[in-house]
């Protein structure tokens, strides 16, 4: 369990005056992943400190989801490592990592459609670590859920499903919560509402690593961010440090971007 109290979330984007200190909770070093012959990730590195909201942005096919899925254990890297609180988890199967505290909310929600809301949460709680999150607490946090708990999740709306998916991950009491493209397929209003829940989630000591195509949303919630393009890191820093032009250049790969503040730390 982390001994440092997480820094308060900075959903309004103001930068945290403290530099990232202490040992990273999640550390990825020189990760290289291939899909067949296609190199999806090229020597990617990042460090997520306890209590941070770390955002990975980039266009489609940049490798963001591959990165998250590799951290979760669903892809095998050809090279590189993933460490949780210093311990090497690179060789662990996905379910082992989940039990150790790396829990992912996958892209597209991926709920168990034939199971009810409550059953989905119960599955998430089956291999839960000890911690503050319980099914009861999820119902308190997302108050609409209690009334619909016996409904099959296939019948819920996209936004509701996304919330249940997050709840399913929360009841496992993760140390690092991986959020893969929360905004996909959802109306902007819903997306805002969901991201608006983040403070409550983070208040319980979680650390979040998220992947997001919606750059403005990512900038709003992240304490640090990293941009990927074609499997490589093109930008790193805090939302306060980077300008819109830099983000645009990094996102689309325009050759005009000069060297940026905050770069060079570990890539």
């Amino acid at each position, binding site marked *: 369990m982390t001994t440092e109290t997480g820094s308060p979330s900075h959903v309004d984007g103001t930068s945290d005056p403290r530099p990232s200190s202490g040992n990273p909770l999640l550390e990825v070093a020189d990760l290289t992943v291939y899909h067949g012959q296609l190199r999806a990730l090229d020597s990617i590195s990042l460090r997520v400190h306890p209590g941070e909201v770390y955002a990975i942005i980039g266009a489609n096919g940049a490798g963001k989801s591959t990165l998250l899925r590799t951290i979760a254990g*669903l892809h095998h890297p050809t090279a590189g490592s993933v460490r949780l609180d210093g311990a090497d988890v690179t060789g662990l199967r996905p379910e082992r990592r989940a039990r150790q505290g790396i829990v992912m909310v996958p892209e597209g929600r*991926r709920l168990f459609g*034939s199971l009810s809301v409550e059953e989905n949460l119960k*599955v998430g709680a089956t291999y839960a670590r000890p911690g503050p999150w319980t099914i009861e607490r999820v119902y308190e946090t997302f108050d609409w859920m209690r009334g619909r708990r016996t409904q099959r999740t296939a019948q819920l709306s996209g936004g509701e499903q996304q919330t249940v998916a997050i709840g399913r991950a929360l009841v496992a009491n993760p140390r690092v919560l991986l959020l893969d493209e929360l905004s996909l397929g959802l109306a902007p209003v819903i997306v805002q509402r969901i991201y608006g829940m983040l403070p409550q989630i983070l208040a319980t000591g979680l650390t979040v690593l998220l992947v997001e195509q919606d750059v403005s949303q990512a900038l709003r919630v992240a304490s640090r961010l990293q941009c990927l393009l074609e499997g490589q890191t093109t930008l790193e820093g805090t939302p306060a440090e980077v300008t819109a032009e830099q983000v645009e250049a990094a996102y689309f790969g325009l050759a005009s971007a000069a060297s940026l503040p905050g770069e060079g730390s570990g890539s």
Partner: protein
Amino acid sequence: MAWVNAIIQGVLTGGLYALFACGLSLMFGVMKVVNLAHGDLAVVAGYVGVGIITVTHIPVLWSFLIVVPVMAVVGYALQRTLIQSALNRGVLTTLIVTLGLSMVIENALLEFFTANSRGIGASMTLVTGSFSLGSQVELPYLLLLIFAVAVAVLLGLQWFLSGSSYGRLIRAVADDQEAAQLSGANYAHVFGIAAALALGTVALGGMAFGMYSTLDPTAGTDTILLFAFVAVVIGGLGSLWGTLLGGIVLGVAQQIGAQINISDELLAGYLVFLLVLVLRPQGLVSRRAQT
């Protein structure tokens, strides 16, 4: 009245067929595996039962308590080793491997036990006795018992799948294997549990079949597998209670066919199957969700 008797017989036989079928349906629903050796393993269970009874002389119903759990463990082991390896390589490989397994089992039984059929004897009253309703309707004790056991098994499976932690995991893995992994479930282990359930129930069916009829090396495919499959299709892929309904329809069709012409018993059952295939491919009880 002979017709009424035939139909009742058919309904009761449906219980036996449901025991054959529920394991097949479960394995397909959870891991998309059609185990072509499904019936042969039931025959193995029967032979093991015969062997145990012959050697130890314990009462027949006690032998069930040994054989069923043993076959469940065998099912788990088989799934974790052979079938999982085949699954990792694709659907085609799985079919080929289970076909090979079926061949090996049948011919091994043939080699070691000859083609002679064997029965599992029980007390005479159980096997031959029956209730009489009126002058022409007989309700055989054995069939009633088998039907009751089948209903109990289906109830048990339903309770397990809907109420227990592992049952939930099985349904979750059936819905989305990867998402279940992300929730901490070792899907290979869950598959193993499902296979254990499947083989346990079909072992029960095989033993029951050995009491009701006789076992021979080819009964696994000729009778058990084909009937199980027909019951699953008629009842609807993915529905547990559908296997009972499918079994009943098959049993009744067979008995009616036998009433018309004694040698048409099997044909009648298959024709009904083809009819269902044509008219309503998803079966009589269709469900979107997995079992």
